[in-house]
């Protein structure tokens, strides 16, 4: 039987943890959550399914697209590359935690002002990656923005207005 490319990118480990659940405690958008999770549960699935925070999207199965980016202890991570058990004790912010008192975060506003989104599927991940980028480099050049966002794919915008949004946010516009 030849190797199948179907789901070939998903490495299926033998499930040696069947029936085992692990208790984790994570702070998500300021609220502490305690849950029992299977050891194989990815952080993104935990956020989406256990916490019903569906703003964090899944766009691939190879950690390539960045749609699932969240902040973990203040830094952007692809939440499909982290197991929920690894996030035990962590402080996580998802896209749902970015607005304050009904006012969108400046990066969210910049995306709206500059038409930095179309279908919106990559957008939560883009916003999380972009805010993390500006935290590290508050005044990036266009090239630095493009390189800084290379882990987040968008199929609609051609990136032009995403880059414009991030530069506008950095400039305080």
């Amino acid at each position, binding site marked *: 039987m030849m190797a199948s490319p179907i789901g070939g990118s998903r490495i299926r480990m033998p499930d040696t943890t069947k029936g085992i659940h692990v208790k984790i405690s994570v702070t998500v958008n300021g609220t502490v959550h305690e849950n029992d999770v299977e050891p194989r549960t990815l952080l993104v699935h935990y956020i989406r399914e256990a916490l019903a925070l569906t*703003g964090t999207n899944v766009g691939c199965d190879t950690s390539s697209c960045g749609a699932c980016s969240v902040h973990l202890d203040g830094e952007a991570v692809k939440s499909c590359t982290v197991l929920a058990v690894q996030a035990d004790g962590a402080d996580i912010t998802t896209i749902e935690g970015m607005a304050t008192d009904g006012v969108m975060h400046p990066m969210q506003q910049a995306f709206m002002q500059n038409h930095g989104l179309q279908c*919106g599927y990559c957008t939560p991940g883009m916003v999380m990656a972009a805010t993390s980028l500006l935290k590290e480099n508050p005044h990036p050049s266009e090239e630095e923005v493009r390189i800084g966002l290379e882990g987040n794919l968008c199929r609609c915008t051609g990136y032009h207005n995403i880059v414009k949004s991030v530069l506008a946010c950095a400039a305080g516009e």
Partner: protein
Amino acid sequence: MTVIDDRPTGVLGSRLLRREDPPLLTGEAKYTNDLHLPGALHLALVRSPYAHARIVSIDLTAALAAPGVIAAYTGADLTGLWAAPMPCAWPVTADMKNPAHYPVAVAKACYVGDAVAVVLATSDAAARDAIELVDVRYEPLEAVVGLEDALSDRVVIHDELGTNKSYRWDLKIEDHEGAIDQAFAAAAFTVNERYVQQRLLPMAMEPRAVAAVPQPFGGDITLYSSTQVPHILKVMTAITLGIPEHQLRVTTPSVGGGFGSKLNVYAEELLCVALARKHKLPVRWNEERGENAVATIHGRGQIQDMELAADADGRITAVRVRIIGDMGAYLQLVTPGIPILGAFLYAGVYDIPLYDFSCTSVFTTLTPTDAYRGAGRPEATYAIERAVDSLARQMGIDPMELRKRNFIQKEQFPYTAMTGLTYDSGDHVAAADMAAGLADYEGVRARQTAQNVPGATKLLGIGQASYFEMCGLAPSRVLASLNYSAGGWEAATVRVLPTNKIQVVTGTAPHGQGHETSWSMIVAEKMGVAPEDVDVLHSDTAIAPLGLDTYGSRSLPVGGVAIALACDKVIDKAKKIAAHQLEANEDDLEFAGGTFSVKGSPDRSMPLAAIAFEAFTAHNLPDGLEPNLEAQVTYDPPNFSWPFGTHLCTVEIDVETGQVQVLQYVAVDDCGNQVNPMIVEGQVHGGVIQGLAQALFEEAVHDTEGNLKNGSLAEYLVPAASDVPSITLGHTVTPSPTNQLGVKGIGEAGTIGAAPAVINAIVDALSGLGVTEIAMPASPHTVWKAIQAATQGASK
């Protein structure tokens, strides 16, 4: 909401920010996979690892015993659920061969990813774990990957057809045939080149997702799907499953991009509905990216043999085109029609008297192809624009000059082409001149002369593509003449509520295009209200029962125009009420800024708000006039819309590595009047990068056994921000004379212009080395090999 109004005249043409954005930006928006459906069963599909194999046996025992598994079925188990095979709505010829195609294969798998069995379980993880336990025995057969190999019938894929050829479709114009041979015989210059349109993976960022929810009593069922075509999906699901159409509701939550790949009726949609009915429980499925690469349609897939004849001045006298279209293993919804959508455009923007087109389409043992951004039209534009550059090189003249000699001139519009279609309006010289100015064309040529000297390690090139796009699908009678099984109209309802808020119901189905914003602007302009006072309802067949959805850059020139016409009908009715109330003659009333007034007596006036309330109470309406202010319009466009433009791409190539760097990309597009320039620009940006990605990065690579070698986003090169340039845009405005808004479609234009502009630039840079052809995608390796072949050939 912030409005940056750069036009003093009103809402239309302003850069109104999108009302769609806040829910998408905050995570509030729900995509299909976000829906909370308690008790839903999860579907997972066992997919063939072989491109071509007989199914010998399937053992479901172990899967059925796995935790959480509720049921498992083979294709044979499910045959009773299908009233008809999966639909192909475009039998392009009367004798087109179309193999019966069912959601789950029964006897044979015909591509890697073809479903052979399904599992239903209480969670997605349980279902996916269980498909690993389904034991399928296959008898592998030979794969058919190459198009010419397929045509040879060395291996016939569908035994019952006896051949791999699906159809041959000719666009032959009476009396042209002999004349074309004469034109080629008499030509001072001829071009005869072969281009390959590689297969592409559409890769919308949201993979597909489906959920079918049966109502507990009465048999109604709601289908949620990440689709571009809820209305078409409803009709086709009813037909394919033999269920009453009125008991089926299709609705799309937010849809994360489509690009044509969600313009289809897929096995998983039919399976979810059929199994939800069977099990009387919600059934859902969400596609993994690896599945998406093989189970969602592919784009392009053509071999194009392109010939031009030209006289001594470079006037093109004839075009002859022969293409082979790769259908893949089966005909999906509009698979066979894709090459035909391009069939009329191989003369491009040029005034060419003689035309001959023929397409032969074949089955291969690969994923079916179907619509992908531009669908047939990028392929056609690529071929003519590459060939024109080739002609210019042969003649030793500037390609822009050669194009100008051949352009259909502004005065010739409306221009009836030899194919019988009428191009509504255009000004190619203006678009080309604007692009040349933005790109500093003369300056680049001067730099090129200085830089591209013998021994140079970095070579400069500039490439042009000028295009006409046939979009705004479509006049129903034209579709009939092409054997398409549906019409091309669009429906709209405009309803003024008692408090003067307005509801618009549209049959378009947006998935990123911002229809809610744009349609509110059309209504605001027409009715004299603020855009915020207009609600736009769509994408739910219970709310918007009539519609033909979103594809083919049709939403604005068909759906948007339908809305404008519905506004006119509402205004006509309101005028009757105003005349009655003001005791004036209808002819003496004028409507401006949301108020009717008697001409010459502005104090005698009545605002729409008051009329809406009168229409609602119905206390004092003219005799025989129905209460309420509402109108419905179904609009069948009299013509396609014909956006056009010129793109110029400047590249620099590292001769030692073959690396292509795009220095500048200029796109000048003319889509007539712009409703919202911000949204137009976004469509062009995205389209250009998708076309540029075909030119430089993307290709679905299959081995000789039909395995997709790069079916993940780690291997398939969807470009990232760091891979692509910023884009310089310009717009000329040549209104369409065929609709009251003067608009043309813009969703596909960028993609159509980009691939030929980029490849022409690369060939232009390397032409001094003797390179005349670069295949797509122009990876560094491909470019380096072409440089090596040319320079080694020259040194011999």
